[in-house]
């Protein structure tokens, strides 16, 4: 999985491309874990280039959210498609993750 990274206002922004599922989520998990261990606890996950997410992908994001928030940080989700929003809602994860229409609005929320 290709993951583009950038930093804005001390917030690490990750933009994965493709599918966040059993096949693709491992790369994302490693990338986010390494950033966390390097001291980045404020993260935005830009899902604008993600076509699909499933329960395995959500499990990985949930673990990252919990660890980030436990360290005083957060993991905000930006630009999910309607399809991806729906998966968050079905699983009930829209209660835990803050979803934003754009990276800019997520940055403002920190």
């Amino acid at each position, binding site marked *: 999985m290709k993951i583009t990274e950038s930093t804005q206002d001390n917030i690490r922004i990750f933009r994965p491309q493709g599918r966040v599922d*059993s*096949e693709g989520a491992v790369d994302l998990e490693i990338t986010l874990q390494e950033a966390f261990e390097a001291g980045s606890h404020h993260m935005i996950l830009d899902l604008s280039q993600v076509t699909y997410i*499933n329960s*395995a992908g*959500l499990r990985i994001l949930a673990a990252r959210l*919990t660890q980030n928030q436990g360290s005083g940080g957060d993991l905000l989700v930006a630009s999910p498609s309607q399809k991806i929003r729906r998966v968050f809602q079905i*699983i009930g*994860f829209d209660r835990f993750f803050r979803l934003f229409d754009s990276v800019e609005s997520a940055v403002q929320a920190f």
Partner: protein
Amino acid sequence: MKNSVLEIPADLNNLEVVRDFVREQVTDFALSEEALEDLILAVNEAATNVIVHGYRYKPGMIQIEIKGGLDDSLHVCIRDQAPLFDPTNIPPPDLSLPLEKRPFGGMGVHLIKTLTDEVKYCITSQGGNELTLVKKQRED
């Protein structure tokens, strides 16, 4: 519609083949794009469960059959020879629990049940698992 069958090794790398198969085989069925995406996601979850929890990443085969039901509904049957397990018995997750207390098992089955109109389980004549996902035809 005529029945279509795909038989492939149980491997996460083959999920794309499964998704493409579903997409290609239901073209003559009156499903909206959203309903088709829901069905593909549900089949993908079910096949993933077979690979990860059924076969536990060990070699095995998955058979996927797509057929029309008597009431014009679409049936996707997912068959495997992994240890017998009826996922329809898994209770729905308690969505009111805080994240740290949410058991992550059962999320995929909850997705499957939500994204389809009916989920049925039976044991095949060969003694394997058969999970059938039913999607109703669009009413218009």
